[in-house]
Structure formats: structure tokens, C-alpha cells
């Protein structure tokens, strides 16, 4: 086979309790998700020989990434042949791409991938996930923004989203359909945080955060963990579930990797990443049954609808108008579990969990009809982007 991802499959997914404040530690939530995923694949702890995560333990109180690989490996007493974290990768799916490399290199056969968040609890003590480190001079790429009171990703990213509004002409009542559709889906997802429907009036009356972003356009900080098992294809076929093949990935960085010098801020780094993904498969956008698109902010979802080619450049406003096409019963169901906007910020791994749940036909009341087999999923914004096409056998 030409592309290594085709030798790999998702064989199990797991999720912890997801809440706005957990009685469990971040490590225990991660153990819950990991054990859930291992059991789902029909595996035992002793079958896991690799771990990957994004970005890896961050060693601070923000709750953004509280669990180190070492903590989880030790808690589960796993015996690993390979492990790796790494935040400098193509968005949150960098962990999956690393696992694909490890599997193809013969370093592992069943890789446990997790993403844990403890931001809900962290925010009760401080402004978690602030872009500014209090009481010290700022370093790294974001330091170029430091003096301008850029305290949150919402403000920085709204620089890009306002450019998108300017170029696309999208109106607030069109933009609202992303949040409204996902809240409707969340109402059918027992794991989701916010399950009561919202109307266009609710949306238009909600607080503005920055630029075109209202609060319903922003993901929800949570305590929780999601985990998946990525297995070598020959091993996957011995697992409990039908294998979900990783049909194609997009992992490129063809632009300037910069939060200040990114060209074409309205489309962010996604177009070349999507182009790479489609270049590695014979499938086309029309073959996709469901889309689990990154939604740290609603505009990421709008961007991905266009950049994956589900609609034309700046055509997302028309594609989502009225919400029928992207609804569970529509031609392209989008963020079927409520996404991060209503389900909670599991940072793209909630999207993988939901996509696989749908492909395995066990999404209960929100199950997409017609036996969906192909899921397009994506991560991240700004200069970061990653994409995967998943196909159930």
C-alpha cells in the first residue's frame, strides 16, 4: 500500500463523564476513558503497546492538558514499546499521525490515544487557558500579541473570523445555524453538557465576546477525557468492532506557521491540509456520510465545510442556511453529538469518539440514518490543521 494510514484503523473509543466540574481527578477521568476504549476494542490492558497524546502534560494549573503520558502509563501499569506526545504537530490529530508512523515502523500494534481536559475545575480558581502568563515577560510566537491585551484565543481568532465575515458576507443569523444545529444534536446525546435547545432569538441575544463571536460560537470548557485505540490493520481485524480504517490524512504545513504572519487568515491553514487528504484517497466529498468538524469556535466549522469541499469558497453561509443540510436528517450531518460548542471541549477527540459511535451505528436517538460508513473529521485553527477520512469496513 502506498499510504501508511491505510494500514491503521480505529478499533475502540472511550469517553469519561464530561462535566462542568468533576468529583474525579483528571487522571481518574483519563483512566475511565482509556479503560472504556480498551474494552470497546475487545482488548486487555496488556494488549496496549503504545501511547500517544496531544499536546502532552503541560505542567501548569490551566487544566488544558493536565495528564502526562507517564502518569497514565503508570496508573494502568502498561508495558509500552513506543510512546510520544507533541503539541507542535498538525493540530490535535498530530497524535494519531504519530501513531500511524509508529505502527508502520513496527513500533506498536495497539496505540492508546487520549485527550484530557480539566478546564472547568481550573476556571473556578483562575482564568484558565489564558494566553498571558501573569507576572512575567511573554515568550514564544504569541508574544507578538502580548502587549495588545490578547488574553484569550477567542480574541486572537476573531481577527481571522472577522476577515472571513468581511470576505464572505455571512450574516449573524446564518452563522447562528452552526450553534443551533449542534445544540439540537446535543439534546440527543447523554454525554453532552448543554442539551436544552436554543433559538435564533436566544443566539442573537447572547453576549458578544470578540468580533463576530458570541458566546454560543465558543466551545465549552469541561472536565473530561476521550480516548481512542489505533491499531495495525491486521490486528484490528481481530478486534471486537468492525475496523474503522484511516483512509486518508492531511498533515501538511505549506503555509507560514505563524499566528501573526499567516497568509489568507480567512481560510486559515486548512485548504492545503484538506487538499493533501483528498490526494491520498479515491473518495470524494460527495462520498462523505457524516462530518465531525473542529469547532473550537463555530467559524472553524464554517471554514472546514468550505475547505473540505462540501460547498464552495464563501458558500458555507448558503449551505448551512436554515440548518436543514447539516441536520442529523440532512444531506451532510455535521457535529452530530453537539460538538465542542454544546457537548464540551474534548478538543477534537470528542469528534472522533462521536464519528466512530455513528459509524458503528450505536448513537441511539441521534443515530444518522442510512448506515453511515464514511466520516470526515478535522482539527484546529490558525496555522494548525489536521484532517482524517474514516471508513468503516
Amino acid at each position, binding site marked *: 500500500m502506498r499510504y501508511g494510514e491505510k494500514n491503521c484503523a480505529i478499533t475502540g473509543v472511550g469517553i469519561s463523564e464530561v462535566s462542568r466540574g468533576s468529583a474525579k481527578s483528571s487522571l481518574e477521568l483519563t483512566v475511565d476513558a482509556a479503560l472504556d476504549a480498551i474494552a470497546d476494542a475487545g482488548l486487555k490492558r496488556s494488549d496496549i503497546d503504545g501511547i500517544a497524546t496531544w499536546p502532552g502534560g503541560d505542567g501548569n494549573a490551566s487544566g488544558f492538558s493536565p495528564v502526562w503520558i507517564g502518569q497514565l502509563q503508570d496508573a494502568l501499569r502498561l508495558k509500552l514499546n513506543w510512546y510520544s506526545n507533541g503539541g507542535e504537530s498538525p493540530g490535535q490529530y498530530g497524535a494519531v499521525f504519530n501513531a500511524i508512523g509508529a505502527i508502520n515502523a513496527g513500533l506498536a500494534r495497539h496505540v492508546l490515544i487520549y485527550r484530557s481536559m480539566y478546564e472547568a475545575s481550573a476556571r473556578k480558581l483562575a482564568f484558565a487557558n489564558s494566553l498571558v502568563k501573569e507576572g512575567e515577560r511573554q515568550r514564544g510566537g504569541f508574544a507578538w500579541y502580548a502587549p495588545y491585551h490578547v488574553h484569550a484565543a477567542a480574541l486572537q481568532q476573531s481577527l481571522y473570523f472577522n476577515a472571513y465575515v468581511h470576505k464572505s458576507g455571512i450574516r449573524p443569523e446564518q452563522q447562528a445555524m452552526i450553534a443551533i444545529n449542534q445544540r439540537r444534536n446535543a439534546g440527543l446525546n447523554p454525554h453532552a453538557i448543554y442539551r436544552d435547545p436554543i433559538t435564533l432569538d436566544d443566539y442573537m441575544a447572547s453576549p458578544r*465576546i470578540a468580533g463576530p463571536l458570541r458566546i454560543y460560537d465558543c466551545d465549552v470548557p469541561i472536565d473530561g477525557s476521550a480516548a481512542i485505540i489505533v491499531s495495525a490493520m491486521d490486528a484490528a481485524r481481530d478486534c471486537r468492532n468492525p475496523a474503522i480504517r484511516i483512509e486518508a490524512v492531511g498533515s501538511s504545513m505549506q503555509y507560514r506557521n505563524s499566528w501573526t504572519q499567516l497568509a489568507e487568515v480567512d481560510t486559515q491553514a486548512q485548504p492545503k491540509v484538506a487538499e493533501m487528504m483528498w490526494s491520498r484517497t479515491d473518495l470524494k466529498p460527495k462520498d462523505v456520510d457524516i462530518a465531525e468538524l473542529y469547532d473550537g469556535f463555530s467559524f472553524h466549522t464554517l471554514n472546514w465545510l468550505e475547505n473540505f469541499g462540501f460547498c464552495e469558497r464563501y458558500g458555507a453561509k448558503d449551505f448551512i442556511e436554515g440548518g436543514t443540510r447539516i441536520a442529523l436528517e440532512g444531506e451532510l450531518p455535521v457535529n452530530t453529538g453537539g460538538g465542542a460548542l454544546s457537548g464540551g471541549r474534548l478538543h477534537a477527540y470528542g469528534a472522533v469518539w462521536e464519528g466512530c459511535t455513528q459509524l458503528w451505528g450505536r448513537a441511539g436517538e441521534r443515530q444518522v440514518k442510512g448506515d453511515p460508513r464514511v466520516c470526515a473529521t478535522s482539527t484546529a485553527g490558525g496555522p494548525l490543521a489536521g484532517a482524517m477520512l474514516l471508513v468503516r469496513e
Partner: protein
Amino acid sequence: MSGSLPRPLPALDRDNAAYWTGGEKGELLICRCGDCGYYVHPPVRFCPECESRDVAPQPVSGRGSVYTFTINYKQWVPRLPERYVLALVALAEQEDVLLPCNVVNCDPDEVTFGMPVKVLFEQCEDLWVPLFEPEGR
């Protein structure tokens, strides 16, 4: 927006110090290639256009245009101004050099895409932070 909440400040290093301190002499200093004239930003002594290592900070006109902007509404931390503009300004000399900044000395609702702006500086400790205001103020 000065006066209320102190600006968080970047750590200086050998590459970025000129940018953050040139305002003491009223100069916006952007690294430029001595061989081909390309402006290299963020600064590093290497020209990605011609591979020259002869790259050094040079004063520019301080003029540019608003490439994109946004208005902040949320009180992320105490003492933030109620509304302020964050922008990326494209440098007049080379439009792919984008400078994060606040656009000041105007109502946030006056800011538009492509609006001509010029630099001014605000001293913060040992730095002179570049800000931009509408041309003609």
C-alpha cells in the same frame, strides 16, 4: 486604552529587541535584507528570499493599512477597557509583513478593512510598544 491595565510585555532577545525599543527614537525598526531589500519579519538574520545573512533592522515609514481587525467586548481580566481594537496592520513597504497592534485614538466602530494607519509608540517599562492610529490624527 493606556493608563488602566498594564500591558503584558514580551521578553526581549537579540532578534526582537530592535522592534520593541526603536520607538525610543520614534522609529519602527523592521529587519531588512541588505542584498535584495526583502523585509524579514518576525526578525531573524536570514533572508528567505535570497539566503543572504546580511539582514539588519531598518527604520520604515510607520505607515500601513488594516489587514484585519476585531473588537474585544469580553472583560477577560479586571480593568480591561470596555471595548478595544486588535488588528493586524500590513506594512506599507511590504504588505505581507503583518504587525499585531491596537488601533487607538479613534472609536472602535470607525476602524475598517484597508484603513490607512500610522504608528505611534507607548512606553511600557523599557519597551516602546508600537500602536497604530488612523492617518491624519
